[in-house]
């Protein structure tokens, strides 16, 4: 499957230039990293936007941008992954449900509170009646959507599939995450020092990453997706074998991987999953991380996928993402992505230059 278009919105100032990764890199002193992009009115009519939550706006804009970038007006499928959907409106709806004793409920919050609202609104904006699917699989939601597109691209090559991942910050989720240790509680926090805090939890983010993929290569494609694998649960001992088997299945060895991108999020309880691979079979190659830039959210790996596509296109590594001092030996041909959240929803994605 070929990646023919890419777009991402998150806490960083993403460069509109094909030649660079970021505009001015954004620093945050709170554990909540809201999306940097604000020019939604450029893409969505005010009348439509007034009912849209943050995730719907981010999803619609990211989808619009990627389709426009390669001059596609009607995709052949809309496939979205989301961990929490339109969480803010879900919270408000449930709050109203309790407050009104299941009586008078706002129809807008009900309509907007379902997980598939983003995919639905993208279709409405585009007047697209093609295949429309939303996958809700925790931290493997984006990967599951990508897997669906991957399988579709094999069965029917000449289709342009819009696939993406989106999640939004919600006040209640953050409050709950603070209570159960998923969010860091240090008084002073800087996102660039995310891996330096010896504490549980991470920083919370939001964003949308959308891609146009196809079984057919366009000129020029960003990357070729070779394989995707997800595991609901893995132990640290079994992880190494799964990684090696994943490469073997694709007729590769660890020596063939030029860049290894991991989802380290600074949580002392779970970053060991990444360390076990980073200090062992991938210890001699460039290692990248990204959650210090965009925060942790269920579909943050969509940003890692964007990053990998961009690296393969530009043939350079953004220094701000580099975890070790290794530089790629020659041209960057193969990138492996690995992500997990709280020891669950492990995923591998293998991309190659094309």
């Amino acid at each position, binding site marked *: 499957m070929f990646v023919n278009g890419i777009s991402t919105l998150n806490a960083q100032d993403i460069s509109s230039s094909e030649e660079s990764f970021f505009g001015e890199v954004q620093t945050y002193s709170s554990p909540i990293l809201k999306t940097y992009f604000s020019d939604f009115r450029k893409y969505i009519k*005010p*009348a439509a936007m*007034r*009912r849209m939550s943050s995730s719907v706006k981010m999803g619609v804009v990211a989808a619009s941008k990627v389709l426009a970038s390669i001059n596609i007006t009607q995709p052949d499928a809309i496939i979205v992954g989301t961990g929490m959907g339109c969480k803010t409106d879900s919270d408000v709806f449930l709050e109203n449900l309790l407050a*009104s004793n299941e009586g*008078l*409920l*706002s*129809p*807008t919050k009900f*309509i907007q509170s379902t997980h598939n609202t983003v995919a639905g609104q993208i279709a409405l904006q585009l007047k697209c009646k093609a295949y429309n699917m939303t996958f809700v699989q925790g931290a493997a939601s984006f990967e599951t959507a990508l897997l669906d597109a991957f399988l579709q691209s094999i069965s029917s090559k000449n289709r342009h599939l819009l696939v993406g991942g989106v999640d939004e910050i919600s006040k209640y989720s953050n409050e709950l995450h603070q209570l159960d240790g998923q969010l860091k509680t240090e008084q002073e926090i800087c996102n660039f020092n995310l891996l330096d805090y010896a504490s549980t939890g991470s920083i919370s983010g939001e964003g949308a990453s959308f891609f146009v993929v196809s079984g057919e290569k366009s000129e020029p494609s960003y990357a070729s997706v070779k394989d995707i694998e997800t595991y609901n649960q893995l132990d640290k001992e079994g992880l190494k074998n799964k990684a090696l088997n994943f490469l073997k299945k694709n007729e590769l060895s660890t020596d063939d991987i030029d860049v290894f991108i991991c989802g380290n999020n600074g949580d002392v309880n779970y970053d060991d999953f990444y360390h076990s691979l980073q200090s062992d079979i991938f210890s001699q190659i460039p290692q990248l991380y990204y959650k210090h830039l965009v925060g942790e959210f269920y579909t943050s790996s969509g940003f890692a996928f964007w990053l990998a596509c961009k690296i393969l296109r530009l043939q350079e590594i953004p220094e701000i993402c580099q975890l070790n001092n290794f530089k790629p030996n020659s041209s960057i041909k193969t990138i492996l992505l690995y992500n997990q959240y709280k020891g669950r929803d492990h995923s591998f994605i293998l991309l190659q230059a094309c």
Partner: protein
Amino acid sequence: MSNLRVELKEKIIEQLNLEDLSVEDIQNDDLLFGDEIGLDSIDALELIVLLEKDYGIKLTDPAEGKEVFKSIETLAQFIESKQ
């Protein structure tokens, strides 16, 4: 301007997320549905909920709603007639 009419405008702007409008932008006789304010069918449902929740008035006849929700003035008169 009566308090009820101002109150209705404030509630409508807040409830329906009419971010671009202020109380001064909505005239009492402006058509709520159509070109002037541009509300739609989902907004009509929101107004029915607002009427019942905030004023205790239940609108049971759909035909009645068309006239009641015509403008701020008709809505205010309807509420006054029920109180």
